């Protein structure tokens, strides 16, 4: 069956010519390497971006330990940047459309809102920033007459590769011709269809943004006002437990951030007083019944950097304590603080970059989107 050859092919050539064997090897490579290797040949590109390979790869790598540390997409006005705090790589990142807003990040996939022009129609996509693949969500706005349009209160992405390689998009919307009812619809990427999960009568007067998918539910937490929780099993809206953050005293600046990392749900409360600066990290208990104080960070060692505006860029929870850190942003810099040893390190210095503006933050509140590099298909 084999043609006569003057010399038998070397093992590496046999492997190269056999997709089954080749896939066994490249399945073990991290997403970043594979994204680069798409350039090897068209054949490798098609193998790497095949949806079935993406699912298999995601399932395998999501269960591996140690888990990879996340990267960030940082938004500066209309531009985005890729930033990895570990490797310290920082470079521009472009979405296909110039008018893109990230609504949410979930385990490596993003929910984005995109327009073709500054005031054009909004379209919603689920996007994988690692592979740059995107899928447009077809949302039925319920009729062409404006007054009958069903209001969308919230759109949220639920993706957990440890449970399924497929994602859900949850849409919380008003029911036509009624202001007090809401309906929960879920789009599933396996069936590629929308399904109504529940319809209830409760006033949802506020537009819900910055929802976080956690523990089979969507949480919209507002530390100082009403928080909401959506149970994905039955579509019920409820109230998650409130957080007892210490009272803000006179002359004190207090900023709260709600952030999720690696399955942990946090409220980061930063207090800046002239004489005392600190950060408390509250974590939501695994059963969602209450909050506990996980970390207390004294910020006085970097007080010199904190005379101007300060923000929390993100919290990174690793599998081990010594892999966990919190990122602060001051004009021109991102500073990482490791919880285990209390150390501070400048991981990004932008003072020579063209986006640097003295005394101003380059990235505003919630302009940092954590994501795991993944080949998960959309």
């Amino acid at each position, binding site marked *: 069956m084999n043609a006569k050859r003057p010399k038998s092919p*070397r093992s590496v050539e046999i492997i190269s010519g056999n997709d089954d064997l080749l896939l066994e090897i490249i399945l073990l490579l991290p997403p970043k390497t594979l994204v680069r290797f798409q350039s090897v040949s068209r054949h490798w590109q098609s193998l790497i971006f095949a949806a079935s390979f993406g699912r298999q790869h995601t399932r395998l790598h999501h269960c591996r330990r140690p888990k990879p540390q996340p990267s960030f997409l940082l938004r500066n006005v209309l531009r985005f940047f890729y930033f990895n705090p570990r490797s310290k790589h920082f470079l521009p990142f472009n979405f296909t459309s110039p008018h893109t807003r990230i609504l949410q990040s979930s385990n490596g996939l993003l929910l984005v809102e995109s327009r073709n022009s500054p005031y054009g129609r909004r379209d919603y996509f689920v996007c994988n920033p690692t592979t740059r693949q995107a899928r447009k969500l077809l949302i039925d706005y319920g009729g062409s007459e404006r007054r009958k349009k069903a209001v969308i209160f919230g759109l949220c992405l639920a993706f957990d590769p440890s449970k399924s390689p497929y994602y859900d998009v949850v849409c919380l919307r008003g029911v036509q011709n009624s202001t007090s009812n809401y309906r929960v619809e879920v789009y599933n990427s396996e069936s590629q269809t929308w399904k109504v999960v529940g319809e209830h009568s409760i006033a949802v007067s506020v537009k819900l943004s910055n929802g976080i998918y956690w523990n089979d539910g969507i949480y919209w937490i507002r530390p100082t006002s009403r928080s909401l929780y959506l149970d994905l099993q039955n579509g019920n809206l409820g109230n998650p437990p409130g957080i007892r953050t210490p009272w803000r005293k006179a002359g004190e600046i207090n900023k709260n951030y709600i952030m999720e990392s690696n399955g942990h749900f946090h409220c980061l409360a930063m207090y800046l007083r002239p004489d005392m600066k600190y950060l408390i990290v509250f974590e939501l208990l695994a059963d969602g019944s209450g909050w506990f104080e996980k970390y207390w960070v004294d910020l006085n060692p970097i007080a010199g950097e904190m005379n101007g505006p300060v923000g929390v860029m993100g919290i990174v929870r690793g599998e081990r304590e010594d892999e966990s850190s919190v990122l602060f942003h001051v004009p021109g810099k991102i500073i990482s603080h490791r919880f285990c040893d209390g150390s501070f390190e400048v991981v990004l210095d932008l003072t020579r970059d063209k986006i640097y503006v003295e005394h101003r933050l380059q990235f505003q509140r919630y302009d940092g989107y954590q994501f795991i590099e993944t080949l998960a298909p959309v």
Partner: protein
Amino acid sequence: MIPLPLIDGRTLARVITYLNKHTEDDASDEAKRKFDEEFLYGMEVGVLYDAALAANYLDIGGLFHEVCQRIADGMMNKSVEWVRKTFHIESEFTSEEEVQIKKEYAWAWEGVDSNAD
């Protein structure tokens, strides 16, 4: 005597060494892990591919997987050119297409080994 035409003697000897170690009654998991590390990291790159094929042909799942992992570890930070050269692949991409890919996925090219090896 069972002829195995697709595997050379040297590779087969290595496979047998591996199997002997792994079927030892009194070898602990820790001892096996240590053996694997020295065994695999001691292999030259070319030999790894021979071992992968042999393990696959003989259907020795554990060894096959470990050799693949070792090959993958060695490839992780390599350049696209290194891959093409090692696997004897000709790319049909035009240089414009390659430039475009590198531009869109620029972050994936950070931290790549230089082509010194």
